[in-house]
């Protein structure tokens, strides 16, 4: 399903839970698929005793990837033209992440329609972990 400009309006919000009780195993899965084996994500002993954090934590790119699931589920596959985020807080094992996408603007350029989204993912305490924006080509 591809998003249609005629079905949305500026200010409209869409929310999706993109991680529920995030597991250390999923973080390890992401280490394996991405190739980022930094022990701060995969090695509790190192992270506590050497890096000085209370536990391992997720790769920023895992939170960006999970956030991207909500975006592609909304706009459709292969439709993103831009996607960028800042990692504003760490994501920890046990976190439940909800992504909210707000329609910032809908535009037309030479007969093609685009949507600009404000992207925000927060944890179960309402603390924002990822903040950014995305642009997608949508249908009329």
């Amino acid at each position, binding site marked *: 399903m*591809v998003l249609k400009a005629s079905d949305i309006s500026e200010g409209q919000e869409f929310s999706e839970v*993109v*991680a529920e009780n995030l597991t250390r195993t*999923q973080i390890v*899965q*992401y280490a*394996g*698929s*991405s*190739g*980022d*084996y*930094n*022990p*701060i994500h*995969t*090695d509790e*002993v*190192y992270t*506590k*005793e*050497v*890096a*000085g*954090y*209370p536990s391992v934590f997720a*790769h*920023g*790119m*895992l939170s*960006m*990837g*999970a956030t*991207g*699931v909500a*975006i*592609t*589920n909304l706009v*459709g*596959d*292969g439709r*993103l*033209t*831009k*996607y*960028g*985020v*800042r*990692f504003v807080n*760490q994501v920890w094992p046990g976190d439940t992440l909800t992504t909210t996408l707000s329609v910032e603007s809908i535009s037309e350029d030479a007969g093609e329609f685009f949507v600009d989204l404000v992207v925000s993912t927060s944890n179960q305490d309402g603390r924002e972990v990822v903040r*950014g924006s995305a642009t997608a080509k949508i249908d009329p």
Partner: protein
Amino acid sequence: MSEQFPVEAGHIMLFARSIGDKNQIYYDSGYASTTEAQGVIAPPTFVAASSQFDEGYSLRPKIGEPWFGSGKAATGVEKQEGGSGGLHAEQHYEYHRHLRPGDILRSVVKEGEKWERESKRAGKLKFSETITEYYDQNDELVITARSVGVVTERPIDQ
């Protein structure tokens, strides 16, 4: 990454699983062929996996070399400073098209700006920006990535 990054179907499937994405377009070629994309594509953040093919990448254990993560001791190297080492502060992508299995990417990396600022939670923060352009087997630019890394003076207060 000066080496080639071959985009493979199995790798896309594993990557999609790891970000919690069950969309069939990332693993089911039969289904994917019936969609607008006309085949399997990669999730938007898939180029993060290019580090798998980066010979010099420091965050992957190298066979026969010491690794800084734990073994018998909490770290496998003699001198390991506290703090986080590097963390990822920002990531931005611009898609000229989406990746498909069979693509073979090469990248051109450019150093961007560097800046510093003080923070209450982690002391001095040193930021550095990297711009990576990914080109396909036809020398077409497919993805432009801008990454900002940060080195913190101390672990971030929780």
